[in-house]
């Protein structure tokens, strides 16, 4: 069922054990995640915004890199599953006192935790932790370096499926700093796996990683032609530090050529949706009229992020429950 190469994420019974990257997961599993998230989507609208599924489990948010949105939605997702949550950020932990990653890991294991949500500036950090963690622990990648941000990609897929239904007829444009974006990489893997008709990258030459076409995307450097007839427009956040690396002249000039405005969106399909993982740089990659406009689904992405995170958390913790029993 799964490619044999992904024995880290997938257990012997084909179940999701760790959620580290979209790469290596097949369509069936991605659809299973989306379907499971669908069933969690209504929980936030009830009188009691909680289900007892992960009661008695302890989930650790292990953030070596600052994040508000991702950490809070993971925390809320865990709490809506009735798990206990521990938030550890690197700036307040012993890692600043020189404790190694493995020592931090062993210490948390000794506290009988069940899951680590890991965000780290180094690509591969979550994989490293998953490889070294005790067998009863699941690891979810909350973003690692330039590599992957799989829960963000899946909440984007969930948003697209909710708004558009089927992927097979969709033309999707990903606009912005693809070179430095872990979100873009995960989105491309997910869109290709789920069978989107066309995935385009729209970016200046300096922000397109070499060889990106091998992932199954086409590359455009002109925004208007890149957006032509698209059903979904995904914008990426332009990080200020890119300006300092001489990759771009200025944010003003970036907005002039790649900032999405209502006028430039005119070439997209009339019912196209606009997405952004947040936080927004208004007037840099997105105009306020678009961000707050009728086609924007940016705030819906945030709500759906909770359902997606509930889905992967319960699937991953559920897998070792089943493994303990030797059940298949």
């Amino acid at each position, binding site marked *: 069922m799964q490619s044999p190469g992904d024995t880290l994420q997938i257990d012997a019974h084909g179940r999701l054990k760790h959620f580290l990257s979209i790469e290596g997961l097949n369509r069936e599993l991605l659809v299973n995640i989306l379907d499971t998230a669908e*069933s969690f989507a*209504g929980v936030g609208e009830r*009188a*009691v915004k909680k*289900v007892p599924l992960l009661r008695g489990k302890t989930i650790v948010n292990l953030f070596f890199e600052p994040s508000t949105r991702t950490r809070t939605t993971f925390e809320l997702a865990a709490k809506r599953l009735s798990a206990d949550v521990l938030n550890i950020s690197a700036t307040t932990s012993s890692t600043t006192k020189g404790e190694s990653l493995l020592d931090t890991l062993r210490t948390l294991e000794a506290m009988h935790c069940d899951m680590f949500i890991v965000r780290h500036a180094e690509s591969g950090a979550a994989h490293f932790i998953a490889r070294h963690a005790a067998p009863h622990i699941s690891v979810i990648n909350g973003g690692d370096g330039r590599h992957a941000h799989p829960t963000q990609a899946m909440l984007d897929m969930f948003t697209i499926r909710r708004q558009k239904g089927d992927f097979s007829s969709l033309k999707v444009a990903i606009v912005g700093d693809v070179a430095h974006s872990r979100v873009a990489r995960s989105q491309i893997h997910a869109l290709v796996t789920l069978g989107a008709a066309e995935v385009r990258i729209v970016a200046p030459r300096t922000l397109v990683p070499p060889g990106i076409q091998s992932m199954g995307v086409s590359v455009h450097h002109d925004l208007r032609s890149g957006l032509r007839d698209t059903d979904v427009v995904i914008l990426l956040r332009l990080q200020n530090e890119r300006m300092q690396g001489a990759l771009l002249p200025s944010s003003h000039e970036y907005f002039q050529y790649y900032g999405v405005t209502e006028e430039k969106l005119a070439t997209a399909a009339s019912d196209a949706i606009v997405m952004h993982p947040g936080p927004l740089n208004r007037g840099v990659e997105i105009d306020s009229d678009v961000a707050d406009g009728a086609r924007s689904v940016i705030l819906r992405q945030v709500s759906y992020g909770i359902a997606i995170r509930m889905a992967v958390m*319960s699937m991953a913790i559920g897998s070792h429950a089943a493994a303990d*029993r030797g*059940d298949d």
Partner: protein
Amino acid sequence: MSGLPDIDTLIGTLAGALEKHLAHHAREAPLMVGVHTGGVWVARKLHTLLAIEEPLGTLNINFYRDDFTRIGMHPMVTPSDLFSVDDRHVVLIDDVLHTGRTVRAALNEIFDYGRPASVTLGVLVERSGREIPIQADAIGQHLSLTEHEYVKLSGPEPLALEITHKT
């Protein structure tokens, strides 16, 4: 194999028993809720027979099961669909009452939607094998079965009951 009465007869018996129970306790304007999957099939029939105006609610108790830590996540097909149950007379319908664990999970979920005025339990088949103290208020039929015998409802059209043996 059979020995079971006709399914429409069973549903008719259950509808009559429910009507009587609700009238006896003066529970008016009930809100009917079926438990996925078999309970929803039975509830649809009862909903029509009893001419209940309010749309049928459905419960998928997967997130409330007591065996998650043993068997993990079940693939979810249809999520729960329920409106506010505050101060309402809820009529909970399932196909088979066996161990009582499903009903316990369903009750827990209902109370996460609000505080109902009452809950009435109706089941098509009440069989032996209770593991927790839960009983039905209205039933279609009682069956005494061994622990190796299982009743299964197939459907939705036509509905059919079958007794199977597992060892």
